[in-house]
C-alpha cells in the first residue's frame, strides 16, 4: 500500500433532537450539495464519482433497504452505491478499501439517521439480541452498557464523580461547536443528581436522541489536488469483532478495541499511541466509555483512567473537542462524526474549538452492545 487516501471535503447538517420538518433524503441532499459546491466534483463516468458508500440502518429508518431511499439524493442515479450497515467508521474504511483496491479513484460517503422517528431506541436495540436468550431477558444496548459500566468502573477506579466530569466537559466543548446538538450546560452536580436509568448509568450519562446527516469525499492521492488545497490523509484503519454473548466477554475491558487499535496503528506506522495524536475523538454513547475506550485504544495506561481524568488529561490530550457522542449524534454515525471533527481540526477549520498545530488525529467508532465491534481510523495532515 504505497497510496494514501485523501479526504477532500466534509459536509454535515446540524445535530438536532428532532428534524421533523425534513425527510432524511433532504438531510442527505444538503450534505451532497455542500460537497459538490465545495469541490466541483461531477458524477460523469469518466472523471466523476462512480461509487457511493452510504451508512444507515434499516431498523432505525423502519425501512427495508434504507439506502434505497437516498439513492438519488446521494448522486447514485445510474452509479454504484453500497451500504455499510455498521458504525460509519466502517463506511469510511470501506471507501478507503475501494480506492486502495484500484477499482475506484473517487468515492462519496454519506450517512444519515433519524433516531427521533423510531418509537423507542430500546425496542430497536433489543432486536439486536438473539431471540432465544438475549431478547427474553430484556437486554438492549443500555442494559448491556449498564453491565459493562459496573464491571469497568470497579476495575479502573472510575467513580461517579469522574463520569460527572466527563459529561460536564462534553457539554462545554459542544457549546463551541456550531453543528453540535444544542443541550443545556450541566454542572457535575447536575450529572450526579440526574435519575438512574440503568444502574449505574444515569440519564445524563447517556447520549440523547439525535438526527443528523453527513457527507465526505475521498479520493486517491494523485487526484486530491483537483478537489482541495487542503487534503487530510486517511493513513490507518483497523477494526475488530468481539464475542457475542456478554457472559463470554470480560466486560471490564475490550480486546476488540485493543486489536482494532493495534491494526490501525500498524497500518499508519504509529509506535506509541500515547504521544502520537494531537486530537483524539472517541465514540462515547455512554460516559463510562470515554475513559474505557481511551485505555483500550492505548492512549492511557490500563487501569489509570480515574487518575487520568483527575489530572485534567482530557483537556491536555484534546479528547473529543466536538463534544463527542455523549452530546448527541445518532447511532450508526458516531464514527463518522468523530472522523469529521478530526478532519476539521487537521484542516484548521474547527473555529473556536480549534487545536493549534494539529497534524495527526485518531477517530473511533463502535457498533453493537457494550462495544462488540470497534473501528479505529488515523488521519494525518
Amino acid at each position: 500500500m504505497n497510496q494514501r487516501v485523501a479526504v477532500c471535503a466534509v459536509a454535515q447538517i446540524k445535530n438536532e433532537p428532532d428534524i421533523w420538518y425534513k425527510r432524511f433524503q433532504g438531510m442527505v441532499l444538503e450534505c451532497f450539495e455542500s460537497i459538490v459546491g465545495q469541490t466541483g466534483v461531477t458524477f460523469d463516468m469518466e472523471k466523476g464519482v462512480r461509487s457511493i458508500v452510504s451508512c444507515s440502518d434499516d431498523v432505525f429508518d423502519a425501512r427495508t433497504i434504507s439506502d434505497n431511499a437516498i439513492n438519488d439524493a446521494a448522486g447514485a442515479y445510474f452509479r454504484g452505491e453500497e451500504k455499510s450497515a455498521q458504525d460509519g467508521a466502517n463506511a469510511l474504511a470501506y471507501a478507503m478499501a475501494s480506492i486502495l483496491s484500484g477499482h475506484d479513484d473517487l468515492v462519496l460517503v454519506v450517512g444519515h439517521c433519524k433516531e427521533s422517528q423510531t418509537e423507542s431506541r430500546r425496542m430497536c436495540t433489543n432486536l439486536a439480541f438473539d431471540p432465544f436468550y438475549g431478547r427474553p431477558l430484556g437486554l438492549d444496548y443500555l442494559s448491556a452498557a449498564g453491565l459493562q459500566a459496573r464491571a469497568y468502573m470497579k476495575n479502573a477506579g472510575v467513580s461517579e464523580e469522574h463520569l460527572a466530569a466527563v459529561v460536564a466537559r462534553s457539554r462545554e466543548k459542544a457549546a463551541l461547536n456550531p453543528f453540535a446538538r444544542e443541550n443545556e450546560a450541566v454542572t457535575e452536580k447536575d450529572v450526579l443528581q440526574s435519575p438512574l436509568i440503568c444502574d449505574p448509568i444515569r440519564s445524563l450519562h447517556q447520549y440523547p436522541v439525535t438526527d443528523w446527516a453527513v457527507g465526505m469525499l475521498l479520493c486517491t492521492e494523485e487526484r486530491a489536488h483537483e478537489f482541495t488545497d487542503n487534503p487530510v490523509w486517511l493513513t490507518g484503519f483497523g477494526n475488530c469483532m468481539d464475542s457475542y454473548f456478554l457472559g463470554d466477554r470480560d466486560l471490564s475491558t475490550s480486546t476488540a478495541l485493543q486489536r482494532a487499535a493495534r491494526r490501525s496503528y500498524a497500518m499508519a506506522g504509529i509506535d506509541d499511541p500515547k504521544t502520537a495524536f494531537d486530537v483524539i475523538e472517541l465514540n462515547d454513547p455512554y460516559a463510562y466509555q470515554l475513559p474505557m475506550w481511551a485505555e483500550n485504544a492505548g492512549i492511557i495506561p490500563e487501569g489509570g483512567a480515574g487518575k487520568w481524568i483527575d489530572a485534567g488529561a482530557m483537556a491536555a490530550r484534546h479528547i473529543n473537542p466536538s463534544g463527542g457522542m455523549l452530546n448527541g449524534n445518532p447511532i450508526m454515525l458516531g464514527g463518522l462524526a468523530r472522523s469529521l471533527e478530526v478532519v476539521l481540526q487537521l484542516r484548521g477549520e474547527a473555529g473556536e474549538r480549534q487545536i493549534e498545530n494539529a497534524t495527526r488525529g485518531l477517530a473511533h467508532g463502535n457498533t453493537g452492545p457494550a462495544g462488540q465491534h470497534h473501528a479505529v481510523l488515523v488521519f494525518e495532515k
Partner: protein
Amino acid sequence: MGYRQKNRHVGIVGIGETKFSSHREDVNQPEMVHEAVRQALDDAGLTINDIDCVVHGNMELFEMVHQPDMWHTLGTGAYGKSSFRLTTGGTTGGTLVSGADNLVASGMYDVVLAIGFEKLQEGHTTGGITNMADPLWARKLQSGALTAQAAVKVIAEFGEERARRAAMAYRIIMDKHACKNPNAHRAFHLEWDQMEDLMENSPPLIGDLRLIHMCSQSDGACAIIFASEKKAKEISSKPVWVRDHITVHREETLNLHNNYYPIDTTHRFAAEQLFGRNGIDNPLEYFDVFEMYDPSAWWGVDWLREFFLLEGDEHIRMVENRDIMIDGKMPINPSGGVISTNPIGATAIIRVAEAAKQIRGDAGEHQIPRNVEHGLASSFGGTMWTVLHILEKELNW
C-alpha cells in the same frame, strides 16, 4: 481516467452453500451460517484462523434482527477478526463479493470470507419488501416483489401466445436445472408436456404473473473465501479469478436526475459499461455460463436481452431454441436459478458461487458438459439495481 485496473488480482478459493429449503427448522441463524462457513473452509482446506476479515450481509427487516452480524459472530467465526457488514437489498450478495474483492485488492486483507444468508421463514417476506417503498406515496401500492410489469412489457412486444410460451419454457428449463442441483429448494420435475396446463391453470398472482413463474422464499446461506493472487495460488489448485465488478443503482425519490438517462435499464447500462471497459465485444460468444438473478420467469426472459445487449427477439429465440439449457449454446442458471432458490441476502452470492463452481468444473450433476472459462453473475435488488461480476478461469486478460 474512468475505470482502472485493480491493484492486485483476487481469487475465489473456497465455496460453501447450505441446503436450501422453505424451513430450515433444524438450525438457528448462526448455525445455518456456520454450515456454509464450515463448508467453504473445508473446500479451501483452511481453518478459521486463516481468515483475516469477515464480510456479512442480509436484509435486517426480513428476520427483524438488528445488526445481525453481532449475534451471527457465533457462526461466522468473526470473533477477533476484522469485519464489515454490507447490505444493498436483493443485490446484497453481489455487494458482498464486490466488497470482498475490494478489501483483498486493497492490500488491507489477504484472505476474506464473505457470507450472505436469509432465513425467510422467520419473518414476513412480502411485508419486508413492501416496507422498502416510500411510506408517503408508494407503500400502499407496493405488493412485495410481485409485479407483472415484465409480463405486460414482453406481451406487448411479442404477443400473448409467444410471450407466455417463452416465459413458461424458461420456467421449465430452470426447473430441469434445479432437479440436477441437490441444494436447490424447489425442484418439481416439470415436463414439457405440462406447458399448456401450467400456462392455463397455475394460480395467477398479478396479471400474467402466475405462481409457477415466481421465485421461492427460502432459507439458506452461502459463503465464499477470497484471497490475494499469491495466497490464492498457495491455497487452491484452481482458484477462480474475479476479473471485474460493477454496481448500478437507480431509484427516483426526489426526481433529481430524470432528464439524464431516460432509456436504459440498469442491467443494460451495467453490462455496456462492464463489457466495454473489459473489451468484451460479444458477450454471448464470450461467456460460457451466466448465473442470473432471475426472480421470475418473465424477468428472466426479458433480462436476457438486457444483459447480453441483444436487440429485437434474439432473447426470445434463445429460450425457444433452448439455447439457455445446461447443454445449450449459452447455459443460464445450471443451478436452477432464483426461481428455484431464493434466500434473498444469499441469493446473489450464490450466483457467484455457482458460476465459480462451473469454472472449476466441480458443480456435480449440474456441471455444464464442456469447458467453462468465462463466467458472468448478476445481482438484482431494490427497484431496479444491478451488480455484475465477471469470473475467469485463467489470469490472462
